[in-house]
Structures are given as structure tokens and as C-alpha cells.
């Protein structure tokens, strides 16, 4: 099982959980899996075209999925996935 760290802004959608355990495979599959149980997550993480929002970073093992094939990025069984607001730094 992979772990998904949920940012505070989304915790109201997942019963306040900080981390979720998922079976996964790819980021797309993980988001589908979470959204099936906690509807609304996909809407917040993806833009109107279904692509990752420019305002949210998604990371597998600390690596930005934009360098790993986007939503098709593979998520190994023991991986940690982070969802992080992008408006930071500088």
C-alpha cells in the first residue's frame, strides 16, 4: 500500500485524515480511488481539463509528477505521495 499525505486544505473532504493508504499504481488511479471514497478530491486537485492544477503540486517520493509523466506517473507499493499547495516559496 502507498501512502498519500493530505494537505490541511483538503482534510475536510477525507474526514480529517492526514494520511490515506491506497493501492494505487498510478497517480490517476490513486485519485480515482480516493475520489470514489471521498467525492470532491479530484475536483480540487485537477483543473477543468482534468490535468493537475497549476496551483497544486503532486509528488511521488518527493519528485514532482510533472517530471514523471504527470497523472500517469507510477506509484510504487511503498511510495509516499504528497499533495502540496503550489503558492509557496521565493
Amino acid at each position, binding site marked *: 500500500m502507498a501512502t498519500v499525505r493530505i494537505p490541511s486544505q483538503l482534510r475536510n473532504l477525507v474526514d480529517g485524515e492526514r494520511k490515506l493508504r491506497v493501492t494505487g499504481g498510478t497517480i490517476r488511479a490513486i485519485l480515482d480511488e480516493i475520489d470514489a471514497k471521498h467525492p470532491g478530491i479530484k475536483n480540487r486537485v485537477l483543473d477543468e481539463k482534468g490535468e493537475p492544477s*497549476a496551483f497544486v503540486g503532486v509528488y511521488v517520493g518527493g519528485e514532482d509528477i510533472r517530471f514523471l509523466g504527470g497523472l500517469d506517473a507510477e506509484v510504487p507499493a511503498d511510495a509516499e505521495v504528497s499533495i502540496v499547495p503550489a*503558492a*509557496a516559496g521565493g
Partner: protein
Amino acid sequence: MSKVLGLKCKECGEVYATNGIHVCELCFGPLEVALDYDHIRSVISREKIENGPISLWRYVDLLPVESGWDSDVRVGFTPLQYAPRLGAAIGLKNLYVKNDSVNPTYSFKDRPVAIAVTKARELGYTVFACASTGNLASAVAAAGVKAEMETYVFLPSDVEAGKITNAAVYGANLIAVNGTYDQLNRLCSEIADEEEWAFCNINVRPYYAEGSKTLAFETVEQLGWRAPDHVVVPIASGALYTKIAQGFEEMVTVGLIDGQSVRVSGAQAAGCGPVAAAFAAGEDAFEPVRQPETVAKSLAIGNPADGNYSLEVARRTGGVIESVTDAETVEGIKLLAATEGIFTEAAGGVTIATLRKLAANGAIGEDEVTVAYVTGNGLKTQEAVDGHVSVTMTIQPTIGSFEDALEDKQEAVLAQAAR
């Protein structure tokens, strides 16, 4: 009546109370401070500002803090230096350098930090923190001392030695991270989500960013209450760049000047130039850079939070975003030092090299009143000029040794002239 209306989402317009939050709960868009300009217009004046402290606090009416600011720390109101020799060297007749390398910790970062630390205390935080490319760490560490807050500063482990020393000396908890700035920035965002800390460029970023507006305010006042025609600003996250543009606009909004049409141009390093690349390609959104490779480590942000907003500012104001190589950057550092007596860090070299490029290709008109923002001190990044500057002569402590060496040098100059 408060001058601050709240925090407003830059994307969807949702309004929030002024707490330690930085993104919209609905769309993850960045939050920014919404000021009550009608109120500010009724209380602000040139005379009031001119009689204010000799620091950025003279513009407190336009800053999102209510009270408790520390007027003993002289942040800001740095020299706007007329730069005729640099201008002559690159073909500009009305050039000024805003020398922001002389702030308390020797970079512009003391400005946003002054606002962030004041707001952090107003909000009741006791720990002050940041994700830094180098300069911010020392600004946060020093501000934390006077504010009596514990500080945590996170830096890439490969930053220049001077930046480590300059942050560590204040007694901060200094955490060197083996990774790029973007990686540690993501890490800090996750830490900020778990700890009740004021991370100045994360959860108190909306207030922090406002501090950079003062670079525009000062420029207007120091030019005699007029806006320049063109400015060149370095771009790392794009917060400085977009806030300088906003600062010029606010001067008009609150009635301090009648109008402005400043062309806001941006400077990036070629080895980490995602915004310049998108500008050149005509794109609205940048592609992140995974592994920045540049001598200008303070600009090494591959995933700039305000990158897309910077593109919008450049196009709206008629500016240009350009990038320069490391070799051009080093030449920029040396040119500014040799013409105007200012030793800037590598990021300043990027700015001067970009200024030179834009003057050469006509993007900046030779008569435009132009201001280049030099945002950090050269003593922080001495590595950048290693091997490019050296001792002229080494002699024995005798007049004869000196005269011989001087003669040798003069002969060498003549020989070079003859070639």
C-alpha cells in the same frame, strides 16, 4: 477603520480573514492582501511619508500590519543611485541603480521579512521560519533575534559559504537540505502544514510579499514623486517582480502620483530561466526546471510560485523577460563594480547583464528613465567571481620592490596596447 479588508484569492476572489493562511480553500489559488484603498487615500500624503521614518516604515499606510513594527531596524529606504558611467557603458542616458544590497542583512529580503515578522507576532506565533535560497535565511534569522522568536531556516546544502555563515551567526536553527530549492520548498510546505509556525514564504506569504512593494514606493519618491519609464527586476519566485509592478500601480491608486506606465522587465539566469523561456515562446504558463544550473543560486527556483503571474505582468506593462549566461553574469558583476562602485551578488550580476542585453537590443530606449534593482551584496557570493578577479601585484615591503613591480605592470599594459 482598518486599512486591510482581508485576504483575497487571486484566482476565484474568495475572501478570508487575515490569518496565517496562504492558499484558497476552494481552488488552491494564492491569497493576497486586499487593502482598502479608499481609506488609505484619505490618510496618506507625500508630506506624511516624507516626515516618516528613514526606512520602509514610512509607507506603513500601504503595508498590512496594524502595530508593533520595529522602527529601530533600518530596513529599506536604500540609495537610488544615478548611474551615468554604467549608463554610458551600455548606452542608456537616464539610468539609476536601486542599491538594495545595503539592508541590515545585505539583501532586499529584509523588506518582506520586516512585514512577515511583524504580522507573525500580531498573529501570536512564537516560531519564525523560511525556505531559503540563501538571502532569506539571514533576514529571518536576524529578524527573529529582535522579535525574540525561535527561528528555523531551511537552505539547500550547496549554497555559498557566506550565506550559511550569515544565517548561522544569529543563532537560528539552520537546516541544510540535500536537494534543490524546489525540493526543500515542498518539504517546508509539508512542515508548515504540521507545525504552528509562521513560515514567512508559506503560510504568512501574503503579508511577506507585500514588503517588496516598498522598492517601487521608494523609487517613485526618490525620483521626485514620479514613476520611472522602465525597470529591470530579477525573477526567482516572481514575488518581487510582481510586487514591484503592484507598488507602482498603488502609488497611482492612492493618489500619490497622477499616473504611471512603467515597463517592468525581468531578469533570469539561463540555467534556471523557466519564466524567460515561456516569455520567449509566447506561452502563458512556464515549464518547471528540474535541476537548476546557475552561478546565481539565489535565483535557482525551477518552479516559481509567481512565474505565470510574472508573464502576465511583463505582457501587460510592455516589459521583457530575458535570461543571461553565467559568463554574462560574472561580467555584469564586474561591470557594475567597475562603473558605479557597487559589488553585487550573482543575482545582481544577472540583473545588470540582462539590463545590458535589453539596452543593446533596443528593448530599453536610450532615453528611458530606467532603474535596475540590485538586490543582494557581493560579499555573500564571492565564489561567483573566484578566478575572475585577483591581486594586481605581490611585493616585498620595500619601495624598490614596489617601483619594480609598477614598472613591470606599466610595461605589460604598453605591450598589450601594442598588440
